[in-house]
């Protein structure tokens, strides 16, 4: 909190270079789903493995971005974003389960000897209602939690621990079989989405494309926010909340808005994540996952828009590689990464890059 962080990456780091690199990355991402449709013997073909892996990382990148909005800009470190992500995922998963089971009950319910759908499953066979749930479930929870938390001015460490307790409670709740979300197994074995087979290359490509679009939209949103007066108020709130209040601002509304927005973005990311990886279960709500998300943001660089994306990409890419190459040393490496970043890279990788630019 001592060093005021930079507003956006795009403002200082040589707008031209950033624009070029960003454009190139976007182009590659947009080309990937098309290339994945090529026949398998073509050397430009992007395999389904690569596509789902990158798709998954992009979903994580959206989470990182959403977390950065509340942490990097408003100074509220949430250790419960996994909950919002999972809620979005579960909402989507409900629809997919209904698609897979047709007119019958989802398999895990017949297994519990339930004869009818619980009330909260009503309407989930319709895609539009599932999409509403994707937004409403995390949004409403964030609204209620945020309203009370910000009203009683919980912040800093307390806020982090409360959000952690929230996601932990959510995890326990969803682990219960009676809760009606498949317990520990969660939802798997999806078949189709809007009538298209979930394993079809075309469906995969479209889902990937949608993920890229969501990322671009959230980036744009973040960019607009950061540049607006609203963004400046948020930053002021992060750096000196009391002074802001003495200036006549009521910080609650600002906090609540960005907090709910962030939760909804997470939910949307979760909804896109589920059909791509093929499973959602309460493990996504485990406090560990949410802490990891905080590390993506810290590694990439808080208070910047590109940083979190970079962090999510780097950590997850390395995770995929390390768990194959040196499975036993992955945790050592991850742990060391946490420590090094906090000790030596308070501004993250972006900070490092910028330093070079400035020289």
């Amino acid at each position, binding site marked *: 909190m001592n060093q005021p962080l930079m507003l956006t990456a795009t403002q200082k780091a040589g707008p031209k270079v950033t624009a070029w690199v960003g454009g190139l990355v976007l182009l590659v991402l947009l080309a990937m789903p098309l290339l994945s449709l090529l026949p398998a013997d073509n050397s430009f073909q992007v395999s389904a493995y690569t596509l789902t892996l990158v798709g998954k990382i992009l979903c994580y990148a959206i989470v990182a971005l959403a977390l950065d909005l509340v942490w990097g800009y408003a100074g509220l*470190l949430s250790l419960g974003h996994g909950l919002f992500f999972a809620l979005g995922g579960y909402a989507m998963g409900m629809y997919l389960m209904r698609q897979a089971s047709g007119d019958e009950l989802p398999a895990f319910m017949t297994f519990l000897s339930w004869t009818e759908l619980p009330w909260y499953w009503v309407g989930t066979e319709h895609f539009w209602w599932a999409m509403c749930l994707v937004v409403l479930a995390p949004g409403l929870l964030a609204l209620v939690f945020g309203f009370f938390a910000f009203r009683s001015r919980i912040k800093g460490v307390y806020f982090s621990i409360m959000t952690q*307790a929230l996601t932990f409670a959510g995890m*326990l709740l969803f682990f219960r079989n009676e809760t009606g979300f498949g317990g520990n197994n969660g939802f798997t074995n999806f078949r189709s989405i809007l009538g298209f087979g979930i394993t079809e290359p075309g469906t995969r490509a479209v889902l990937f494309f949608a993920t890229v679009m969501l990322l671009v939209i959230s980036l744009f949103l973040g960019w607009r926010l950061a540049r607006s007066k609203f963004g400046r108020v948020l930053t002021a709130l992060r750096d000196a909340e009391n002074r802001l209040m003495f200036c006549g601002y009521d910080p609650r509304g600002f906090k609540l808005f960005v907090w709910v927005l962030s939760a909804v973005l997470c939910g949307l990311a979760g909804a896109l994540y589920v059909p791509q990886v093929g499973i959602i279960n309460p493990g996504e709500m485990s406090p560990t996952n949410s802490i990891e998300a905080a590390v993506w943001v*810290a590694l990439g660089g808080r208070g910047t828009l590109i940083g979190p994306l970079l962090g999510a990409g780097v950590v997850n890419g390395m995770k995929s590689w390390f768990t194959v190459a040196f499975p036993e040393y992955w945790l050592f490496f991850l742990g060391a990464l946490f420590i090094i970043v906090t000790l030596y890279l308070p501004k993250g990788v972006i900070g490092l890059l910028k330093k070079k630019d400035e020289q």
Partner: protein
Amino acid sequence: MPTALYRLILACLLLLPLGAYANDANDFAAANNSEQAQLLESWAAHPTPGRVELINGLQQGQISVDGEVKTLRLNNRLRGLIDTALASHQLLAVDPKLRLNAAQQLQKSAKPAQLKFLDQQLAAETDSDVRSALSLALANLQLVDPDPAVRLAAVRLLGETGEPLARTRLENLLQPDIETDASVRTAAETSLAQVKRKLLIGDLLGQAFSGLSLGSILLLAALGLAITFGLLGVINMAHGEMLMLGAYSTYCVQLLFQRFAPGAIEFYPLLALPVAFFVTAAVGMVLERTIIRHLYGRPLETLLATWGISLILIQLVRVLFGAQNVEVANPAWLSGGLHVLPNLVLPYNRLVIIVFALAVVVLTWLLLNKTRLGLNVRAVTQNRNMAACCGVPTGRVDMLAFGLGSGIAGLGGVALSQIGNVGPDLGQGYIIDSFLVVVLGGVGQLAGTVYAAFGLGIANKILEPQIGAVLGKILILGLIILFIQKRPQGLFALKGRVID
């Protein structure tokens, strides 16, 4: 029963004790499982002093046939019958203590065939404790006596115990068409009410005790954190791993005792305490000097760095000791429990942990409030710059305070090793609870931590029987979140006018 067996028993009774003993052993060794069971039942009904040694051997799973010791293959049914037979034989012992134990065992497991023998023993018994225990054992069997007067006496006697078994027996008696005599029925009803009342008292006390016990465990887990987080402001996510290191220190001490001082193995936890304290305190101090000291004043970043530390420590332990749990045995004096009421057993390990937790709290309080170090710690945590100006070596104090917090966590680890798993993931299960306890109690407040730990423990144990362990925990988490909204500073807020 086959006639061969009758002859056999007859032969046993007629022969000299020594000869009978040898024959019994031979018969037993030669019999198959169901014949062995019959033998044991008949022995229980007609005990002779010479057979005690044989049955004692059987209980250990050994039998000596013709001077040769063999290991027996027993199952649970035989083990139960052996216990009953042994109790039957021990009623003949000289030592009244043995007889009392035997009578108590027979209250649970006496068979109708033993009725006659018990009757005889009761008539001959001189010790009053044994008499009452024995008459109870007899009463259980007399519930089906043809004479209503005997039944009435038995029912009245049963009403005076708090045995869970008595309740079932009376309930069975009260089922339609079982007991026909009206006076016995009414007596049984009053007795049943009596028993139920006694059982209820035991249940409530048991619930209170388990709440206290859970609270003391939470307290030990959270106390170290109350110092590192509460006083130093470090969000120490590696706190759980300090508990884990403490537990592993206990394991290592146990190994050393096994190798070098097997005779004194009973007392390894006593040595494990200082070892665990110093090991974890040293680890804590090293971490403080190398990593955490750079992060004071940036609490959220200590969270990330200490999380990294915890990952490294977990994997390190996994590489060194393996991913599997390691075995930490309770010494004999921490095994078993104190029988307070027939349905209330207080396990020794839990009793010791409650006392230990309170002792650690008292010591910590003394250390923080009555020593120079404590004064310095409080000074530094209240106002670092001012303390430095007054000549307090803040760096050293930070290091010592962090070491103290870690060391206390290590002590907690020793306690945890006596009730649960010792594995690399041990700490992960306690970290969230620990934070909640500290936050709920009010950061920087030792008393708050104590109240919060016991409060949470008892609340958990009150809720668990009603709505199950999972929902209970969720409800409590929800309540804590609500409570913090109401009182953001926790139960005990620090008074002050500091504002950022």
